[in-house]
């Protein structure tokens, strides 16, 4: 790496540390819910009753203050 870029640029290893931490923590903070598979199946059954959806994605996440559940349903054509 160019010495000047190294000195003056903003590309030190701290930035990659930050990015890597964000990714790994986002993963580790995800909540493991014991009833997840059953819930997924039942939601899918309800959704399928009205639409052609064949797949849903459910993601549970948690940060210090709040737990969230993200449900993605792709409606078939």
């Amino acid at each position, binding site marked *: 790496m160019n010495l000047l870029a190294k*000195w*003056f*640029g*903003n*590309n*030190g*290893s*701290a*930035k990659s*540390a*930050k990015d*890597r*931490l*964000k990714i*790994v*923590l986002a993963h*580790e*903070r995800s909540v493991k819910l014991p009833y997840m598979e059953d819930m997924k199946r039942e939601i899918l059954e309800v959704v399928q009753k009205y639409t052609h959806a064949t797949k849903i994605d459910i993601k549970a996440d*948690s*940060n*210090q*203050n709040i737990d969230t559940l993200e449900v993605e349903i792709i409606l078939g054509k």
Partner: protein
Amino acid sequence: MAEVITITSGKGGVGKSTATANIAVGLAQKGKKVVAIDFDIGLRNLDMILGLENRIVYDVVDVMEGRCNLSQALINDKKTKNLYFLPASQSKDKNILDKEKVRNLVENLKKDFDYILLDSPAGIESGFEHAIFWADRALVIVTPEVSSVRDSDRVIGIIDAKSDKAKNGSEVQKHIIINRLKPDLIAKGEMLSNEDVLNILALPLIGLVPEDNKVVSATNSGEPVIYGNSPSGQAYKRIVNRLLGEKIAFPEFKSQNGFLSVFKRLFQ
């Protein structure tokens, strides 16, 4: 009313015992009656840092198991008379602690002291959960490294899930101390800055401690840095004042390498 403060971290070797010793001395110097307890069962560190290793007869497990009285086991600090110390047991069985016995001990100490400092073992070592269970406040020591930050996040989650306060629907007050900051490396973008760490952990800061060689000699001689005026000693004094409720600004640690930072500013 006595406050129970647990000093903890995700990873080992980030300076928990050093922080416990310095904060304990600092609070005692402010006229508070303080007891510092080493909860790292199987190992012992705090006694060396405080310089009290020669005076140990009984330990924290002896007290809890009723093999001695509390007053027999408490060691009075040689320099700061308001400070007492209860050493860790070197028992091989790390699972020796029992929740109710720890509660009894803490309740007994609450009658006599203003502050009870628990030096916890790292992360999910056994003993960790006992150290956080009865805590009113937790100080999480983090160094600006990926492994330390990552493990701290885990530990913060455990404090929220497993403390007595959490079980009763309230919350342990949590604060971050960032230890071993190296301003030179941060200026070069080669070390996570305090903003980076706080951004990721999303907890309030209570102390920034710069890397300081004085800590090594202080540990060697058994006299915590807070007795002196080195950068880390001053940092611990500010932490103590903040614990006592004073509002004190966080100083910006200047890079030692002034030349580089001047250049950097010129070119930006």
